[in-house]
Every structure is written in structure tokens, then in C-alpha cells.
């Protein structure tokens, strides 16, 4: 579903992402882990067509992001780490805007908005301006707007930040449902316990370079993901020194 091949993105002399290669198949939940500034958000933004890249290729369902970004964007839902939405719109107007952009028919949009807004207990607040929302409410609205066009691939940057425990649980359930229907999810997180329990595969990057990737069981072995992550980080520091 998502193929990242030798992705390299530089800012001036700094390689934010360095020859990153990852394959995320249909039905997979793929965690993307790394310390702050490791290049996760940059890689994610490149996948969504928000940032251009210097080398490599990204394919969404076989379509090149570089050559046909619009076709790829139609298949993707991107939920950023900081849900800066249009504050001047009400929640419902924002969702309607996104539905219009993705060409979601009237009946489907009504059904999906009702389903997800009820699920996240946001329905009664949909008439409020987004500027009046709390961070968590904005995050929920961003998630609903991501799901409204039934994307095949969901790319999320720290999706659990700001969500209350119930909403976090619901999001995890939705992620499972999405993958059971043949979709794919690629998301970054610092909550290693969530990644460990939720994901089929994991990739760890450090300073833009992939340190390890693969099935969760293979990467983790007999240890916790947290221990593996810390050990790999340490080993990488020693190697680079």
C-alpha cells in the first residue's frame, strides 16, 4: 500500500531523512518510532505530498507521490501531530469542507459524520467554531475529517497526543477495523506500549536513518519494545562515535 524507497530529504546540509526504505502492506498497522528530531514527521510529510524530497521514491498503492501527488492524496488521510484546523469554521463546516474536497456523496458524508462524531462524543459540539475547541476536540475533529472519505491509507503523526483514554481506545479500535477491511496505517508515536500492542510492524529511525524494521515480534524478540528501542539507540550512538 505504501512503498518508501531510498527516501532522502535534506534541509540545507542536514539530511533529515537518509535513504529510508519501508514497505507497508494492506492490512498492516505500522509504527514509526524515533527520538525527537529523528526525521519521522519529515518522512511522514513526504509520504503525504506535503514536502518534496531530494532522492528516492514513494508509492501509494503503486502510484508515485512525486509524479502523481493528487492521485495519491485521494487515497490518503493525514492526521498531523498538531491539529491546526481552520479556526474560523465550525466543526460541521470543516467536515463538510473536507467532504466536498474529497467528493464524498451527501448520504455517505452524513452517515460517516454521524457515526464518527457520535463515537467520539463530538456531535453536540459540531456547531461550535473550531477556535472554541480544546486540543483534544481538535484532534478528534482531525481524526473524523481523516476518516470521512474512507481512505485506503491512514498516515498519522502522534495521533494519541491530547486524546482522552476513551478516545484513544476508540481510535485503536478504528485502526483495527480499518486494517481488517484491507486498509493500511502508518503512524509515528512515542508511546511504545501502544505501538507494541497495536502494531504488526515497526520501524525505528535515528537521525534520519533506519536502524531496524520488521515484524513486531522479530524486532522485539523476548524483550519489551522500550528496551529494544533504548538498546538500539545506544548501539547506534556507539557506532557513529
Amino acid at each position: 500500500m505504501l512503498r518508501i524507497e531510498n527516501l532522502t530529504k535534506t534541509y540545507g546540509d542536514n539530511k533529515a531523512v537518509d535513504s529510508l526504505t519501508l514497505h507497508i502492506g494492506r492490512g498492516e498497522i505500522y509504527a514509526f518510532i524515533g527520538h525527537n528530531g529523528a526525521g519521522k514527521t519529515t518522512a511522514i510529510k513526504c509520504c503525504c505530498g506535503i514536502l518534496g524530497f531530494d532522492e528516492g521514491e514513494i508509492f501509494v498503492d503503486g502510484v508515485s507521490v512525486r509524479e502523481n501527488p493528487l492521485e495519491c492524496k485521494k487515497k490518503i488521510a493525514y492526521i498531523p501531530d498538531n491539529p491546526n484546523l481552520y479556526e474560523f469554521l465550525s466543526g460541521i463546516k470543516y467536515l463538510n469542507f473536507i467532504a466536498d474536497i474529497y467528493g464524498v456523496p451527501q448520504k455517505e458524508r452524513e452517515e460517516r459524520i454521524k457515526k464518527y462524531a457520535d463515537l467520539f462524543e463530538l456531535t453536540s459540539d459540531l456547531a461550535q467554531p473550531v477556535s472554541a475547541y480544546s486540543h483534544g476536540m481538535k484532534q478528534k475533529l482531525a481524526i473524523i475529517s481523516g476518516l470521512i472519505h474512507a481512505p485506503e491509507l491512514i498516515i498519522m503523526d502522534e495521533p494519541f497526543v491530547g486524546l482522552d483514554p476513551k478516545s484513544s481506545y476508540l481510535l485503536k479500535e478504528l485502526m483495527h477495523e480499518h486494517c481488517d477491511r484491507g486498509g493500511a496505517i502508518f503512524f509515528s508515536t512515542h508511546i511504545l506500549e501502544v505501538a507494541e500492542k497495536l502494531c504488526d510492524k515497526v520501524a525505528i529511525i535515528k537521525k534520519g536513518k533506519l536502524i531496524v524494521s520488521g515484524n513486531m515480534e522479530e524486532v522485539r524478540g523476548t524483550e519489551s519494545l522500550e528496551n529494544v528501542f533504548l538498546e538500539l539507540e545506544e548501539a547506534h550512538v556507539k557506532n557513529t562515535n
Partner: protein
Amino acid sequence: MLKTLIRNRMGALGSFMLGSARTKKGASKAKMVGFGVLMIYVGASFAMSFGMLFDQLAEPFHMMNIDWMYFSFTGMIAFALMFLGSIFATQTQLYDAKDNELLLSMPIPPKYILASRMAMLLVFNYIFELLVILPAGVVYVMHVPVRAGSVIFFGIEFLFLPLLAFAVAGLFGWGLALVSSKVRNKSLVTMILSLAFLAAYFYGYSKLNTYIQSLVANGSVIAEQIKGVALPVYWLGNAIATQNALHLLFSVLCMIVPFTAVYAVLSATFIKVITTKRGFTKVRYEEKSMKAGTAASALFRKELQLFISCPGYMMNAALGVVFILVAAGALVVKQDLISLVTAGMPDIAPYIGPAAIFALCLINSMVIISAPSISLEGSSLWIAQSIPVPAGDILLAKVKLHLAISLPAVVAASVVFSCVLRPGFIMMICMLLVPAFFTVFCALLGVALNLKFPKFDWVSETQAVKQGISTLIAMFGSAAAVLAPGMVYLKLLSDKVLAEVYMIGYGVLLAAACLILYRWLMTRGARIFETLQ
């Protein structure tokens, strides 16, 4: 700490106007030079108009031996400009700045936060003041012999006057913030107050000539009245005119004391006002049938919603639309007078058509709706960049908003101009088409300029609209695109080229410029938008 905060605010202002804080790229030399030239042009335009005003007063007041009135009048004009120029900036900078809460969370005394913001507003005040006092000083020196003492007193008086303007504007902004912190629809309150100010301003402006004539005719009487009811105004003028040290002291005290008092009140209530949450009445969502639309209409509606939800955007970017309608209305009201003038002076008849078209275009250049539209994406830029819509369509939605707001007014005004002035058939076609082409040109130019000079790290929408370099260039650049061909025609070509031919040529040039700009936006502009950060 205070120094750091002031440096930070000044740096933010500088980078806002010139550089890009996100890319950490400094302003290029060419950009600096261009900005400098633009500033000189703006400053010179203001200075010229004020200079002409003072030129009518300097000699008569000197002859009447009331030189102090000249300086008092200078002070009042400077005060009015500073007050009007900074009143809403005061509110948005002091109370609505988006980084207020961040700064309050740091171990910084609130009075320092306040002082750093005040420093920036004072800089603005000094700039506004210079636009008035420089031409006033130069004009006076040209007409009246001046002593060194007067020059020094002039400098001292006007060094302190911005403090008084700040005090009054700060007090007003404080009241405004207090009122709006208690009402739900803050935008509406700001809008009503802005319109009230605007109406007062234009009323005063429309009467300016009458006031000047009255001042010249009844200078001595008015001077006596001012001495009676507004003593500080007299002290200000007299201190400069007669080098009266006591009056200098009194007038400077009249500026420092209110400033100190307002600063004390503001710093005591600063936290309370900026942290008072608005009393939102929660609107409960009721499910209703939703309308599906196209992506293009969704983008347009989003732009429109942004426009109408931000009074600062409406007031600063679309004021020209009101002026266009007022101009059309004025033409209807004064049509008898115009007929009388044209009948009495048949020589000017050929110039009326081109002059009307250029005037309409000139007013139109004040409409700068599209010029801050990219910057206004702010931190939500990721949405526009991640949706499956060509960047060209997103840019076009911004152009469409500009046209939707201004084009109907322009067309209506063109029709009124044509009906009232009744030029020949060809000139009438020009009158209908050229302002419309110019509107399209302004809309496209605004977006193109904002693509070249975007700023996303604003602290309030009004800042993005008022202080962006793209809005400044859009306004003065498009004004130059009217004034230059207008002057060329009137000064050089009016007796060589038929007015109709000249206006057709101008219209063709505008249409070509529109095509070039449109093509640029859809190709290079779209690529720039995709890579904005």
C-alpha cells in the same frame, strides 16, 4: 529581560516585513532596496499631501502673529494620525496577541511583556508622527525665518507627543478589550467600532478644506478659543513659536503624565484582561441534511468564511469597495454640478472619461483582499497542501474571493459613471471594461505577491493583513499602475493621442498583464505554493 523582549518584538516585525522566520533566510539586498524604495514612495506620498495642507497655513498664521497655532495644528494632525493609525493595532498587539499566554507562562513580569509591546507601538507612532512633522517643519522653514531655539523645542515637543497618542489609544484599546472579553461576538463589536471610527474619520476628512479655510479666515478668533478651552494645545504651539520654556515644561508634562497613568493602569490589569475568557454561549449542533458541493466551491466558501470572520481583514483589505460605492454615490448626487462644470469648460470634456476611469482604478487599488490570503493560511497551511486539489485551484479560490467582493461594486460604479458622465460609445465601453480588467489584475497581483512574500508566523490575522510586505506592494504597486499611465497621458500624450485609443491601449495592457499573471499563478505560482513552509 526587557531588552530581549523588545529585541524579539522588533525582530519579529522586521522579519515579518522582510524575511522568512521559518526558513531563517535573511532579506536579500534586492528585497531590502525594494522595500526601502517602497517606504520612500509611501512616505513621500504622505509627506506631499501634508505638505500641501501646511503650505496653506504657514504664511497666514505668521502674518496674523499666531505662529503657535501652526505648531498646535501640526501637533493635532500628528496626534490624530498616530491615534487612528495605532488604535486597533494597540488592541491586537497588546491584548489579542497569540503569544500572550506563552509569555505569561514564562518567568517574565507582565509589565515587561506590556512594555515590550508598547515599545513596538511607540515605534509605529513615531513613524506616523514623522510623516506629519517633517513636511510641517520644512514648509514652515520655507515661509518663516526660524531660530535655533524653536527647532530644539520643536524636537522636544514632538519627541514626547507619541506618548500621549499611545496613552489615549492604549486606554481605548483597553476598554475595547474589556468590552469584547465580556461579549460573545467579538468580531461584531470590533466591526461596529471600526466602522464608527471610519465614519468619523471620513466626516472629518470631507470637511478638512472647510476647516482649513475657516482656520485661515478666523485664525485669531480660533486661537483665542483654543487658549481658553485647550490650554495644553496652546502650550505646545507657543513653546515652539516663542521658545517659552515654561510652556514646554507644561505641555511635556501633559504628555508624560497620562502616559505614565495609562501604563500603570494597563500593567495592573494586563493579566486580567488577556486571560478573561469570552462568555461563549454554547450552540448545540442539530443534525440537518448536508449539501454536497464541488471542491472549487468548498475552497471559495472557506475563503469567504475566513474573510467575514475577521473584521481586521475586512476593514483593512476591502475598504476600497466602500470607497468605490461612495464615489459612485457622490457622482450621482453631484451630477448637476458636473454637468455645469463640463458645460462651462468644454476644453476639459475629452479628459473626463480617462480621468474617471483612472480615478475608479485608483480607488480600486485600495482593495487588497487577495494580497494577504496566502499568509492567512498560517499554521493551517498543511491542510491546503495535503488535500487532493491542484495548488492552482487553491490560488484561484483566493482570486475569486477578491473578485466576488470587489467586482460587483466596480461594475456598478462603472455603470453609474457611464450613465452620469455620458462619454462617447467607445469611452463608455472602456469605462465598463478597464476598471473590471484592473480589478482582475489586482486580484491576481495580490496572490502572486503573497506567494513571493508569505508570512505564516503572525500573532493576529490583522497583523498578517496590515504588516505584510505583499499587502504594501499590492496597494502601492497597483496604485502606481494607475498613476503612471494616467500621468503619462495627462502630461505628455493628451494632445497627441486620442483618449479612446489611449484607454483601449491601457485596457489591452491590463488584459495582457492579467493573462501573464494567471499563467504564472497556474504554473510557477502553484509550484511555489506546494513548497511553502
